[in-house]
């Protein structure tokens, strides 16, 4: 099969085969980062614009490294310093970037659906680097890529996602992707952080961390964003760690080779103990490395649809 989508907006919108294609492509790109000259010419002459409305270092840097290893030119725009502050709308900003003859926009935005809205208003490719609480597809893809490297397959795996599910785009993208590839997903959080109707996304819900860890092959630990607690509804950090923190003691009751993932940045002693973060079960730094390969794959695949379109019209 080949890739046909202009954009990558979320894993909800991808088929199993499309996700597998990204993972296969990422596997072949991973090798590039091990070379002494870490560069291939796949996107030479193409311009990638990182349009970031939310502060983000790790995702932006990861996309930037990925694009540069593909030989693309990279422009970073952060909303704080752009014309957005002067009142330009998202759609106008997108059309201006298109008029600059950029090829791909990588967008991070605090509003759910921002990438969808941008994508249907520009002809160039849009990659969602996280929109509100909605989706963060490349994060989930790198999580799944990492799982696949460890286990060789996704089908049949039991993955638990622990933390603020209600406000997590990482959780939603992982749920879509893992379910499509045949894993079973459990979410675990204090009740107030489980959003209504989440069961309809085909996940099991538990409020008991030990139950979530019991048979899990992997646990994906979400960052607790205490700074975003609008309604002051979260438990205290200390209470949270006591009841939901991933500690060595809790892992000892889980499967011996359970994989511990975290999208970063980690808060040691808040959602995960230092000991666990640095343990052999932890793949947190491998995730960062795999993020480059996955983002190279995504950038490459969406750029191919443009080339095919150009050929078609010639």
């Amino acid at each position, binding site marked *: 099969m080949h890739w046909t989508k202009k954009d990558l907006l979320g894993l909800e919108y991808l088929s199993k085969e499309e996700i597998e294609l990204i993972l296969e492509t990422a596997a072949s790109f991973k090798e590039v980062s091990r070379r002494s000259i870490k560069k291939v010419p796949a996107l030479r002459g193409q311009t990638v614009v990182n349009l970031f409305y939310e502060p983000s270092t790790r995702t932006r840097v990861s996309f930037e490294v990925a694009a540069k290893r593909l030989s693309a030119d990279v422009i970073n725009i952060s909303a704080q310093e752009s014309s957005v502050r002067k009142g330009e709308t998202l759609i106008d900003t997108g059309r201006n970037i298109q008029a600059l003859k950029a090829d791909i926009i990588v967008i991070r935005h605090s509003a*759910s*659906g921002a990438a*969808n*809205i941008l994508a249907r208003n520009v002809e160039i490719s849009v990659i969602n680097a996280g929109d509100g609480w909605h989706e963060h597809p490349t994060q989930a893809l790198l999580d799944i890529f990492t799982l696949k490297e460890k286990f060789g397959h996704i089908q049949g795996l039991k993955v638990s996602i622990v933390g603020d599910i209600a406000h997590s785009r990482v959780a939603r993208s992982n749920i879509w992707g893992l379910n499509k590839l045949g894993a079973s997903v459990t979410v675990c959080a204090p009740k107030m952080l489980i959003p209504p109707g989440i069961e309809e996304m085909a996940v099991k819900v538990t409020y008991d961390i030990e139950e979530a860890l019991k048979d899990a092959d992997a646990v994906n630990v979400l960052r607790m964003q205490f700074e975003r607690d609008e309604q002051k509804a979260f438990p205290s950090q200390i209470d949270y760690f006591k009841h939901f923190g991933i500690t060595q003691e809790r892992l000892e009751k889980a499967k011996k080779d359970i994989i511990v993932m975290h999208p970063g940045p980690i808060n040691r002693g808040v959602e995960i103990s230092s000991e666990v973060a640095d343990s052999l079960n932890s793949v947190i730094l491998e995730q960062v490395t795999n993020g480059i390969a996955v983002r190279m794959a995504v950038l490459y695949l969406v750029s191919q649809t443009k080339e095919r379109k150009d050929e078609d019209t010639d």
Partner: protein
Amino acid sequence: MKILIKGGLVIDPANNLNEIMDIFIEGGRICRVAKNINHQADEVINAAGKMVIPGIIDMHVHLREPGREDKETVASGTKAGLKGGVTSILAMPNTQPVMDKPASIKLLKEIIQKTSQSHVFICGAITRERMGKELTKISTLKKLGVVAISDDGASVDAARLMLAALKEAKRNKMVVISHCEDKSLSGNGVMNLGAISTRLGLRGISRESEYKRVGRDIALAKKANASIHIAHVSCQESVELIAEAKKRKVKVTAETCPHYFTFTEEALLDYNTNFKINPPLRGKEDLEAIKNALKDGTLDVIASDHAPHTESEKDVEFEKAEFGTIGLETLFAASATALVHSGLMDWPDLIKKFTLNPARILGLDKGTLSVGSDADIAIIEPCKEWVLKKEDIISRSKNCAFVGTKFKGWVEYTICAGNIAYYAK
């Protein structure tokens, strides 16, 4: 001007009329309704195969003038209404300035007199600036011609103030139209709270935020023995509360809008901001409950809640977009499609919800084809199918949830005050 409408199926629920008749109009009034009229006329309309109904009364419209003429004006809104068979509009008071004092009412009356293409009635505000702090001078507003009061767009949070408003409205023989929303529950939600809002990562608006306020306002109306009209009912629990109150003889009436019986929250799956409406589109059970409540009479009125917004207010991130859809041009067609052609209701039942019922609730001498009444008439092609295209919208704003929707039922002529005010060429 003398107009003779020949051979149409005349449906006038106020007179229990549902048969083929001719109608003769002269001097802006209906002069005769009978079989085989052969008077000389300036214009003879052959209505064979068509329905002839009283001009529609849309009792929930945001005309935006004065203040937001970029979204809609009295002229553009009334013209859009005529295209939809609407000859009478109740203009909501959330304009700039708010319709809360004599100067504002006089200003709007002047605009209406100069520019309106159909009949426009004014809904005054319940509280000053619609801030929910202090009642307006309801008797003064009444004297200036206001026919109802509402803080639409906002709910009166203080129960004591709402009770006082109901008592004062009763003394002035007016209905209070209640926008039922407990803001402490709906917060900054942007769509129905549930599995779909979870999936989309959008903040939800719970059903409770609506129906708890419906329950409160029914209780207050009962205590005041006053008439209350619940605006834009969207959920099953509200319907149940209204049905139960009607059984207890509380003077409650209620309306819904075509979007609530045409779409569910699933319409939002692509973040199309034209479906961002307050109260929000709900679930399938709610849609069914609304339809059944229209059939059994729990819901008395269908109104559009026509809420025009500019492209720049809608073509933005979902959470930033304004709430509302326009609906004047599609009110009849959407209702006919979902309620009559689906087999749920018959034509007289439906037409009552647009004509007789709103006229009674507002105390208007409108909504019938009785001899001597104003010649406000719509002539309908009941089975004509059409699809709404954005470029065909004549309202100044184009934010319409129904763009692309296939309808069955088409307004061919609208006669307003005895003149042919609209004809679909």
